[in-house]
C-alpha cells in the first residue's frame, strides 16, 4: 500500500515538473535566449498582451465572470492593434486584496503586459493601485466605483461613474418614492460597500435636511450569512428604505431574511446587485428590490451600443436573460485601451497613458466617454432598475448635474 502511494506521489511530482516546464519552453522559443533581458512588451514580436485582472472566484466571482465575458467579446470583435494580434492574459484576484497584489504583479513581471483591464470590485483595484503606478502600466477599471481607485494614480482610469454620484442617485430616488427614514447595512472592510454606504448616508441626510433620517447603520463581516440580528434591530426602527450595498453573494441573504422577518420596507442596493444570482437565490423575495446600474440594453446610447447589444445578445442566448452592465463596461474598457494603443503607436506605458488621457468623445457602448483630470469617465447618467416577475426591469434613468 505504502509503496503504491509513494509511487503515485513521485509520478505526480514528475508530471508537475513537465507541466511547469511547458510555458517556460514556449517563452524560451519566442525569446531566443531566455536569459536575455527584454524590454516589457517587446518580447513577442507578433502579439500584444493585455492583462485582464478580475475576480473569478470568491465573493465577487459572479460579477467578475460577467465583466470578463464583455472583455472577451470585445477581443473577438477587435482582435488586432498596430497590425498585431491582441492576446488577453487573464488572472484571478479571488476577490481578495492580498491575492490582488500577487495577481497584478504576475501580469506585470511575468507576462509583461502592456496594459491592464480590471477589476470588478473597488477593494482589489485599490490594493493593486500602487503596483500599477510604480510599474507605469496603464490600467482601465471597467466598473470599480470607489473614488480612491483613480485618485492620485496617473495610470489608473475607469469607464464608469463614481460612488458619490451613485450614492446621491439612490438617495434621490428613495426620497422621490416618499422615504423619510433609511437604514444602511455595509460590509466592514470592503471599500466598495463602506464607500457607497457613506455617500448614500451623506446624500440622504443632506436631501432630507435631517441628521436623524438615517435611523440605523449596521456592519457585517466577509462570509457572514446570518443577518437576522441586524435586521431585527432595523425592523424595530421601521425605516422606509433599507440601503445595503454588498456583493451579489450577500445581497440575496439580506433580502430573504428581511422578508422572512416581515420587513416590508423598500430594499435597495448598488450596481453589484444586477446579477442573475441575486434573483436565483432570493427567489420571490427579490421582487421589488431597486438598484442602480450603468447600462440598459433597451436604450442603446450610441451606434456602437446597437451593434454590441445585437451581437452580444446572441452570445449570451440561453445563458443570461439580459446583458449585464458590467459586461458592457468591460467591452468599453477593452476598446478604450485598444484605441489608446493605436493612437500612441507604441506599447510604451507612458505613451499609452498619454493617449488615454487625450481620449476625446470616444464612442463606447455605455455612452460617449471623456476622461476627467483624475482619469474617471465623465458620466452623469445612472440607470435605475427593479425586479419584476423574476427579471431586472428598467425603471428610470437619472441624470445629476
Amino acid at each position: 500500500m505504502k509503496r503504491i502511494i509513494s509511487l503515485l506521489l513521485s509520478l505526480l511530482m514528475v508530471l508537475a515538473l513537465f507541466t511547469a516546464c511547458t510555458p517556460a519552453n514556449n517563452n524560451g522559443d519566442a525569446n531566443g535566449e531566455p536569459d536575455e533581458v527584454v524590454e516589457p512588451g517587446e518580447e513577442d514580436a507578433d502579439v500584444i498582451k493585455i492583462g485582464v485582472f478580475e475576480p473569478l472566484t470568491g465573493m465577487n466571482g459572479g460579477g467578475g465572470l460577467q465583466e470578463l465575458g464583455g472583455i472577451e467579446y470585445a477581443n473577438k470583435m477587435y482582435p488586432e492593434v498596430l497590425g498585431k494580434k491582441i492576446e488577453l492574459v487573464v488572472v484571478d484576484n479571488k476577490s481578495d486584496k492580498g491575492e490582488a497584489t500577487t495577481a497584478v504583479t504576475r501580469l506585470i513581471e511575468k507576462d509583461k503586459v502592456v496594459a491592464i483591464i480590471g477589476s470588478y470590485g473597488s477593494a482589489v483595484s485599490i490594493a493593486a493601485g500602487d503596483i500599477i503606478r510604480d510599474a507605469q502600466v496603464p490600467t482601465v477599471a471597467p466598473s470599480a466605483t470607489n473614488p480612491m481607485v483613480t485618485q492620485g494614480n496617473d495610470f489608473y482610469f475607469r469607464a464608469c461613474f463614481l460612488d458619490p454620484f451613485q450614492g446621491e442617485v439612490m438617495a434621490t430616488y428613495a426620497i422621490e418614492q416618499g422615504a423619510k427614514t433609511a437604514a444602511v447595512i455595509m460590509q466592514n472592510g470592503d471599500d466598495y460597500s463602506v464607500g457607497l454606504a457613506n455617500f448614500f448616508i451623506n446624500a440622504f441626510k443632506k436631501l432630507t435636511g435631517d441628521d436623524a433620517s438615517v435611523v440605523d447603520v449596521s456592519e457585517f463581516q466577509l462570509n457572514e450569512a446570518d443577518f437576522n440580528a441586524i435586521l431585527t434591530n432595523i425592523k424595530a426602527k421601521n425605516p422606509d428604505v433599507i440601503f445595503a450595498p454588498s456583493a451579489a453573494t450577500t445581497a440575496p441573504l439580506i433580502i430573504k431574511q428581511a422578508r422572512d422577518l416581515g420587513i416590508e420596507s423598500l430594499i435597495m442596493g448598488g450596481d453589484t446587485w444586477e446579477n442573475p444570482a441575486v434573483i436565483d437565490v432570493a427567489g420571490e423575495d427579490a421582487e421589488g428590490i431597486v438598484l442602480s446600474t450603468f447600462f440598459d440594453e433597451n436604450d442603446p446610447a450610441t451606434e456602437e451600443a446597437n451593434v454590441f447589444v445585437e451581437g452580444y445578445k446572441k452570445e449570451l442566448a440561453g445563458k443570461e436573460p439580459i446583458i449585464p452592465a458590467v459586461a458592457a463596461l468591460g467591452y468599453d474598457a477593452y476598446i478604450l485601451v485598444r484605441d489608446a494603443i493605436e493612437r500612441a503607436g507604441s506599447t510604451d506605458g507612458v505613451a499609452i497613458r498619454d493617449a488615454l488621457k487625450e481620449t476625446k468623445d470616444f464612442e463606447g457602448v455605455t455612452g460617449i466617454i471623456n476622461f476627467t483630470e483624475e482619469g474617471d469617465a465623465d458620466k452623469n447618467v445612472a440607470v435605475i432598475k427593479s425586479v419584476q416577475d423574476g427579471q431586472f426591469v428598467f425603471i428610470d434613468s437619472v441624470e445629476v448635474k
Partner: protein
Amino acid sequence: MTSELLLQQLANGISLGSLYALLAIGYTMVYGILRLINFAHGDIFMMAAYFMVFSIVTFRLPWYIAIVVVIIVTIALGVLLEKTAYKPLRNAPRMSIMISAIGASFLLENLATYLFTGVPRGFPDIRILTTTVELGSLSLTVATLITPFVTLILLYVVLFITNKTKIGMAMRAVSKDFETAKLMGININQVISTTFVIGSALAAVGAILWGSRYPSVMPLMGVMPGLKCFIAAVLGGIGNATGAVLGGFILGMAEIMLITFLPSLTGYRDAMAFVILIVVLLVKPTGLLGEKVTDKV
C-alpha cells in the same frame, strides 16, 4: 428595547446557536477519537449543501427523498476523506495529519470552485421549512423553529450511541487510550469510520437546515461556520458532545446579544467569537464540560 424585539432576538440566537451546535458535534467527536481537528468539516458541510442543490434542482427528487440521499452521499464523502487523507497518516506525527486536514479543506474548497464556479447557487426552497409562522409579533420560519429540537434530538441519539451501544463503548475506549484499545482487539478502523459517519451525517442535517435559512450556496460558505463551530466545540470542552451543543448555543446567543444590546459593535461580531475562545483558553483550557486529561504528547 421592546419585549418583542428581545423575544425575536432570543429566537434568532437559539436558532443560530443550534446550527452551530450541530456542526460542533462533528468536530468534537473526531477530536475525541483521533485527537485531530478536522479542518475539512466545514467543507463537508458545504459539499452537503451542494448535494442538496443537485438532488433537488438537477435530479428533481422530492425533498424527503433528497434529504436521505444527501445524508448518505455526505457520509460517503466523509468516510472517503478519512480513508484517503487521514488513515495513511495514522502513525505519522500529529502535525502531519493536521496539515493533511488543512490540505483536505483547501482541496474541497477549490474543487467546489472549479466544478460549481464561485457564483452562488440558490438553495432549493423546501416549502415546509421556509414557510413563515407568525407568533404574535414574532415572525419565524419553520426551519428556525424546528432547528433547536432537531439539534437536541440528534444530541440525544449521539449520546445514546456513545453510551449505550457496543460500538459506542468501543469509541469511548479508543478515545481513552488508542493503543490499549487496539491491543484489546477493538477494530480501530471501524470505530473511526463510525465517528466520521456520525459527524458527516450531522453536517448534512446542519447544511439542510442552514440552507433553508441562509439559501446562498457557494464554495466558501463552510469557512466561517467551520471556524465558529470549532470555537463552540473548544468552548464546550472538545471531545464532549453535550459540551459542543452547549458551546454552540452560548456562541450563537452571544453573537446575537452583542448586536441586540450594542448595535454599534455589529462589525465586531466575529471578533467576539474569537475573544470568547481566547478567554476560555486562558481561564479554563479544557472548556466548560471538558475533562482534565494529561496529554500524552
